[in-house]
């Protein structure tokens, strides 16, 4: 059962018709096959038109789409011999952060990703991708592991934000994020970060300070959720559409601001329509990014990573 977003309704209707016709045909009725082909062309055209000019708010919806490929899918497709690792060695295991070692296109790597979960049970287990301090401390531990063995670090960002709760605050949510940023800026191994869905504020930047920062075409990355921003600045969460415009959270705007290095194109109609193709495209982009920095010396990598972040914020949008 496919989930359609509001603005995808016309597509949903057409696809419904196609489905009906297919049911009717059963045999090899040529007229029906022709009609199906005609409708399919229409669907493609409609998708192309819609997805070529998605508004920022529509991108927010696409970025949060339930069928969008999540970290676990990405890892199981792109990483061979993946060995998941658990725990922060201090307090607990946080399933909102998935991590481990594996082989990416021939090379051993350490993977850290934020997992939202794909069904109700999964979402609860992964806490909707909202990590506690343990998640960030686990990420930091895995960063240290990467550094110790000279393995590249691949991170995949997909989180509404760090979890706001009593325990999280008591155990130092802010400190855990700060140390995670600190650690990843110190690494002497290549770090490739990919914003695959929702890059939610401090919870995202904790694992997004790399040598190359990639962003999926319809992903979003923002200092605050549009709803949060609207409820503070407009005093109404209803104004999230406007906030999404104002925040400039799309890949296109972030590339102009020099915050990301590359945009990974998504299949027609978004990654949720063809997850396999989307993941393959992401894999190629990560491999290319890794190739650019792999041969650099550890201290050069670290110095350039710092320079990269220090250079941000010099230019604005016109």
């Amino acid at each position, binding site marked *: 059962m496919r989930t359609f977003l509001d603005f995808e309704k016309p597509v949903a209707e057409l696809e419904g018709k196609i489905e009906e016709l297919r049911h009717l045909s059963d045999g090899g009725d040529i007229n029906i096959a022709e009609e199906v082909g005609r409708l399919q062309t229409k669907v493609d055209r409609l998708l192309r038109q819609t997805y070529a000019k998605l508004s920022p708010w529509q991108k927010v919806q696409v970025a949060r789409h339930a069928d969008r490929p999540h970290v676990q899918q990405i890892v199981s497709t792109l990483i061979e011999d993946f060995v998941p690792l658990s725990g922060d060695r201090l307090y607990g295991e946080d399933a909102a952060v998935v991590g481990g070692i594996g082989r990416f296109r021939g090379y051993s790597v350490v993977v850290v990703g934020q997992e939202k979960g794909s069904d109700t049970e999964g979402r609860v287990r992964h806490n909707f991708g909202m990590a506690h301090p343990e998640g960030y401390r686990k990420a930091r531990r895995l960063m240290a592991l990467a550094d110790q063995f000279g393995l590249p670090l691949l991170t995949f960002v997909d989180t509404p934000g*760090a*979890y*706001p*709760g*009593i325990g*999280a*605050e*008591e*155990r*130092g*949510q*802010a*400190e855990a*994020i*700060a*140390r995670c*940023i*600190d650690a990843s*800026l*110190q690494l002497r191994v290549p770090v490739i970060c990919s914003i695959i869905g929702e890059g939610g*504020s*401090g919870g*995202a*930047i*904790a694992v997004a*300070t790399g040598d190359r920062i990639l962003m999926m075409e319809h992903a979003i*990355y*923002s*200092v*605050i959720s549009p709803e*949060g*921003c609207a409820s*503070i*600045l*407009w005093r109404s969460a209803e104004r999230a559409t*406007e*906030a999404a415009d*104002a*925040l*400039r*959270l799309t890949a296109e705007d*972030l590339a102009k*601001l020099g*915050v990301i290095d590359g945009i990974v194109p998504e299949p027609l109609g978004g990654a949720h329509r063809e997850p396999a193709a989307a993941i393959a495209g992401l894999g190629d982009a990560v491999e290319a990014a890794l190739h650019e920095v792999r041969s650099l010396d550890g201290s050069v990598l670290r110095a350039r990573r*710092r320079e990269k*972040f*220090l250079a*941000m*914020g*010099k*230019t*604005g*949008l*016109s």
Partner: protein
Amino acid sequence: MSWLTNFVRPKLRALGIKPDVPDNLWIKCPNCEQMLFHRELAANLHVCHYCDHHLRLPAADRLAMLFDEGAFQTIELPETIADPLRFRDRRRYSERLRDARHGDDRRDAVLVGHGTMGGHPAVVAAFDFGFMGGSMGVAAGESLLAAANLAVLQDAPLIVVPASGGARMQEGILSLMQMPRTVIGVQQVREAGLPYIVVLADPTTGGVTASFAMLGDIALAEPGAIVGFAGTRVIQETIREKLPAGFQRAEYLHDHGMVDMVVHRRALRDRLISLIGLLRHPRPKAEVVSLERRGEGAGKTSDKAPQEKVGAAPGPADPKGSPAKGA
């Protein structure tokens, strides 16, 4: 309403006559609601003399209370791009910014000064909560980086006093990028072997807490200061439970191992001075020589030995300027 307000006052204003009496001579303590006379309050470092509540301190006052004799020099902060996103909510960000800057010389939320504390050179960066909630955008981030640079150049410890609601939403992702950027500043100070001390003031939340503010080699907090990552309203809406008493207050953080100590504002300067002294001058002012070794030394280079011993002391950086005698 009346003839006076509608007619006479605008006329007077047009003549450029300013009222002699400022309207904020009395300040109500936000905790005990006692009225406090501004001069007494300032003399008491903006601490309520009835209930000891620590009121928010403007950045310039913060610098003045920390440096010797209240004397310090501020540095010119780097010029940064204003309104990089051309942000507009119900009002334009550029207008909000202009209003915040209006009427005083603050460029943004962070003030950086250098001077001496107990004779030790020091660099202090303090946030002004009064400037757009002390929010951190590009300008604040640049100011902190400038403070870190200055500390390294002057071989001085860096003290940062955050008081901020977090990232400045109106600068969007560029505000978020100030988190790693300010962390880089901390790393530069650390790599230079200099102490980095944070004094968490009310309030320190959001992206400010989750970056440089939680990375202090030593973390002090002012009594009652709210320090946390998420805002209490957001937490309450998420968990739908009552928050424990004193939640996210400095004392609560101390109990949970997140800060080294809660320090009364009156004791803050002395505490910082002793910390700087301990971290910067780890050796005695002159080497303490046991009698036996003194004997050995005397046997060989009888008249030079004592001078050498004194020379091994920290020397020029000695804060009190008092040469050690008779070590």
